[in-house]
């Protein structure tokens, strides 16, 4: 290297005369320092709330409005009936085709309880305002950011206010509001309010105009709606897309999920800062009283035990416990054995409802669903549910054209089927469409050895095959990786529960595949023999110099083949004399002959489940008992009519 030899001397550091800089005094700096309102913060960091791109923004707005509508209906005990309308709009001119439009109007109407007049402006135009943040209760929304953030995004991109119409009962008037958010103060600005005549006796309608992009496919509004229906089969939903036909999703499960209860925080789930705040805010006058009344699962005995461990008087005033004492208390809480939090605050979807959702929305041959018993992470109870839809529906399978029968050359393989499983993820019944790779659910699916269940899976990738994997986490507090609620964060307990649920689904799938394989293999066995017999007969004939009674040998071998493969029995095995899902609880098998298993859907008129199934009451005892072994009942179970 020449350069090495004649390298110029390293530049000596400049003498310590800094370039002239504008100096700022602390006073001047202080003058610039001021509060940042949350609204301002999120205006600049809209990606945190799921408004990174116009396409995602459209989805987020629909999602927030629908989540709110469903939460409200369920809390009020009303079977939700929601209408979602997305239209392309243009200023003045005729709207462009949906795929090219950049502005959309979203209208979501529900039949919920409505909102009282005074609360309408803050709910829709004030960030971090809502009923869900301060209580531990399972709901779709958690923070009270969603719908107001959507409105703010609309305001930011189109300047249009959010329009709300709401009515609390047929006797009350409907109120119409147009509101915007004052981003500096994080306060609502009412642009218009009046009483109007509204055709609905009760409910809320929200309209937002936003900048967005409409595109079908993965993570689209259409996909969101479809997945929402799978996990919420008690919802009746009408979707009016910006182009194409209106989709009507009928209710397939005629029962609201049990209302989740609200719980107090579990001591294991809180952090020191939270404890300090609770100590200040409590209404109790003694430390033991505070512990026993403000937490779940802390009895007076346990409270006394904690105080003792922390070396604090049970009668100390909670407000006086701070500093080192509070830290001791915190440590004492962590080291005391406390019962797991109550789980009645959770409302899992339930196996029958998951089955109904999957069966209705996804075409396949095999369905199953598993609801795990509740578990706890960081003091928060949660339930994992998993479901599986596998295969192609008989009519689909028939449609795929038979592959051309050409002999293969060396190195050529049968057409590789590169289809891999699709994961649909849910948190508190809300589909998660973004960031699949960051999500604990995806990781658990990848970590499961699907090969054990007869499904191909290459290293480190999703299982192969026509398969949809459904995973739902229900919890009072779902740990998301970010505010935009797209992926579930990593917790060992959660990972373990997901894995256990997936394994159970996998075992049932494996049992189904093996059973199907058994019937096919007898047939194939005979086929193989018949195929090769001709080759052997011809070879033997040539070996014998063409002087062989070929017909005789062929006949003898064929007779043996039939005998060995079970003769008529194979036909019977192949004949679809129903091997229903014995030993496969909560599963459905679809064959060209019909549906086997307990399809939890019943048409209202008692006809076999068909196009518009409606569910019977979902009480567990309402399900058909398991079939007894050996009894073949291939007909759909759906015809049963249950007392309502």
């Amino acid at each position, binding site marked *: 290297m020449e350069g090495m030899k004649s390298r110029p001397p390293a530049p000596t550091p400049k003498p310590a005369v800094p370039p002239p800089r504008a100096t700022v005094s602390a006073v001047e700096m202080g003058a610039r320092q001021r509060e940042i309102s949350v609204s301002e913060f999120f205006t600049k960091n809209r990606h945190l709330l799921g408004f990174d791109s116009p396409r995602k923004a459209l989805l987020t707005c629909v999602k927030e409005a629908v989540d709110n509508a469903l939460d409200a209906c369920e809390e009020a005990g009303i079977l939700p009936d929601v209408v979602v309308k997305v239209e392309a709009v243009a200023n003045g001119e005729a709207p462009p085709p949906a795929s090219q439009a950049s502005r959309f109007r979203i209208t979501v109407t529900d039949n919920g309880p409505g909102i009282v007049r005074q609360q309408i402006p803050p709910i829709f135009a004030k960030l971090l305002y809502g009923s869900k943040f301060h209580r531990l209760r399972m709901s779709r929304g958690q923070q009270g950011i969603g719908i107001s953030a959507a409105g703010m995004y609309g305001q930011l991109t189109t300047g249009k206010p959010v329009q709300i119409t709401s009515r609390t009962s047929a006797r009350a008037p409907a109120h119409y509001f147009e509101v915007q958010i004052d981003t500096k103060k994080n306060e609502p600005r009412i642009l218009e309010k009046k009483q109007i005549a509204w055709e609905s006796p009760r409910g809320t309608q929200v309209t937002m105009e936003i900048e967005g992009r409409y595109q079908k496919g993965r993570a689209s509004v259409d996909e969101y709606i479809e997945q929402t229906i799978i996990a919420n089969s008690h919802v009746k939903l009408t979707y009016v897309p910006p182009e194409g036909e209106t989709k009507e999703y009928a209710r397939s499960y005629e029962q609201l999920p049990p209302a989740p209860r609200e719980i107090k925080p579990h001591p294991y789930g809180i952090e020191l800062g939270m404890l300090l705040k609770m100590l200040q805010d409590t209404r109790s006058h003694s430390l033991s009283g505070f512990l026993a009344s403000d937490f779940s699962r802390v009895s007076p005995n346990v409270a006394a035990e904690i105080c003792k461990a922390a070396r604090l008087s049970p009668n100390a005033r909670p407000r006086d416990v701070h500093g080192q004492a509070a830290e001791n208390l915190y440590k004492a809480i962590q080291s005391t054995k406390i019962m797991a939090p109550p789980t009645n605050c959770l409302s899992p979807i339930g196996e029958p409802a998951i089955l109904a959702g999957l069966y209705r929305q996804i075409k396949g041959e095999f369905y199953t669903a598993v609801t795990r018993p509740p578990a706890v992470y960081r003091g928060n109870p949660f339930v994992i549910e998993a479901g599986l839809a596998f295969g192609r529906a008989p009519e689909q399978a028939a449609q795929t054209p038979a592959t051309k029968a050409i002999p*293969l050359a060396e190195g050529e393989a049968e057409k590789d089927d590169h289809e891999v499983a699709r994961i649909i993820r849910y948190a508190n019944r809300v589909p998660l469409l973004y960031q699949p790779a960051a999500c604990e659910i995806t990781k658990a699916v990848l970590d499961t050895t699907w090969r054990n269940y007869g499904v191909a899976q290459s290293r480190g990738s999703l299982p192969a095959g026509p398969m949809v994997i459904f995973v739902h986490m229900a919890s009072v507090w779902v740990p998301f990786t970010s505010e935009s609620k797209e992926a579930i964060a990593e917790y060992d307990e959660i990972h373990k529960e997901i894995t256990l649920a997936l394994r159970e689904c996998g075992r049932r799938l494996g049992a189904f595949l093996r059973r199907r394989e058994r019937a096919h293999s007898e047939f194939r*066995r005979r086929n193989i023999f018949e195929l*090769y017999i001709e080759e052997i007969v011809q*070879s033997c004939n040539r*070996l014998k110099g063409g002087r062989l009674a070929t017909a005789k040998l062929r006949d003898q*071998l064929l007779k043996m083949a039939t005998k060995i493969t079970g003769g008529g029995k194979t036909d019977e095995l192949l004949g679809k004399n129903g091997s229903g899902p014995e030993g496969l609880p909560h599963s459905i098998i679809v064959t060209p002959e019909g549906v086997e298993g307990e399809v939890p859907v019943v048409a209202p008129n008692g006809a076999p489940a068909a196009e518009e199934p409606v569910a019977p009451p979902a009480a567990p005892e309402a399900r058909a008992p398991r079939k007894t072994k050996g009894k073949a009942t291939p007909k759909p179970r759906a015809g049963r009519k249950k007392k309502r």
Partner: protein
Amino acid sequence: MAKKPRKPTAVEKKLVGVADLVIAAAEKRKDPTIAIPVRSLSNVNFNERKGLIEMGKRKQARSFFNVAMAKKFMQTVLVADALSELQRANLTTSLREIYYRTKHTIKDSHENTLDTQDESDPLIEDLEVTLTALREELHVRAENAGSIVGPVVFVDDGDRVDCTRLGKGGYSVPSIVEPEYLQIARCTADFVLLVEKGTQWNRLSEDKFWRRYNCVLLTGNGQPPRGVRRLARRLHEEKQLPVYVLVDNDPWGYYIYSVIKQGSINLAFESQRMAIPKAKFMGLSSADPEAYGLPRNVGIKLNDKDVARARELLAYTWFQKKSWQEEIKRMLSSGLKYELDALANKDFQYLTKKYLPRKLKEKDWLD
């Protein structure tokens, strides 16, 4: 070449036996089954008296009416058919041609009888061991992958081949060297030197080492093909020439030597006709680097595979002689392997001028 009906050869009769077996089984309503001797380490014995690896008695059944074996059975019959066709036409062929000859699409399906050559090759070995017929007798040849030079005269297809007059390149050893095809007309050499590597054979041939030490130089370019092994065996047997083996100093070199000496595990049944129990291991020995002052830096570090292979060799019954255990353990403890080519570090002609002369003089070889 239409010939008048001729008597079927012994091998042909054996091949027809496969068809007879199927016919007889079908007649008795029995599952047609071929009993194939197992070709694995577990089914070979080392006959110490004869110094040969011999095949054990264990056999595996290949039945037609068994889903897992049906296709293989069909393929075996097909290959037997193709082999008998060779016999009738008196032609020789390669493994690959057998594969192409037997490949076709099964009627009324789009399944091939065979998909790759990997499927047909083991079937030929199966038939070799089952029918106790050598591959040469089945008229299947390998590539001509060996060379010979030295004071020996062959008659090949009526042509006299004098291996002293073939320059540096020598005579390319045919795959089939059975007496019917190749006769040894004259041989005045004192010994046979079988060299693993073509490069070192070239060195010796170029230096006319064979003239000076009156020997036959043979190479198989790596693992010697059957033709080379069989030819060495014939020179050893018919002309009473001692055979010396010169290989790299690594586990693979040891194994090449052992295959020449005792036969291979896979085709143990043919040791009878191939193995040279009296063959001697001339080098490179793990003692040579020290004895001949080879510097450490021309060695190559043993990798994990080498070490694993060396340990396997240590366990083989035919490597149990004390001298061999020492030899292999010495290599393992040094952690190095040496190529023959490394001798060039001292001098280009070190092998010809120093190494081999000293080895021969000191009778420094392993048995």
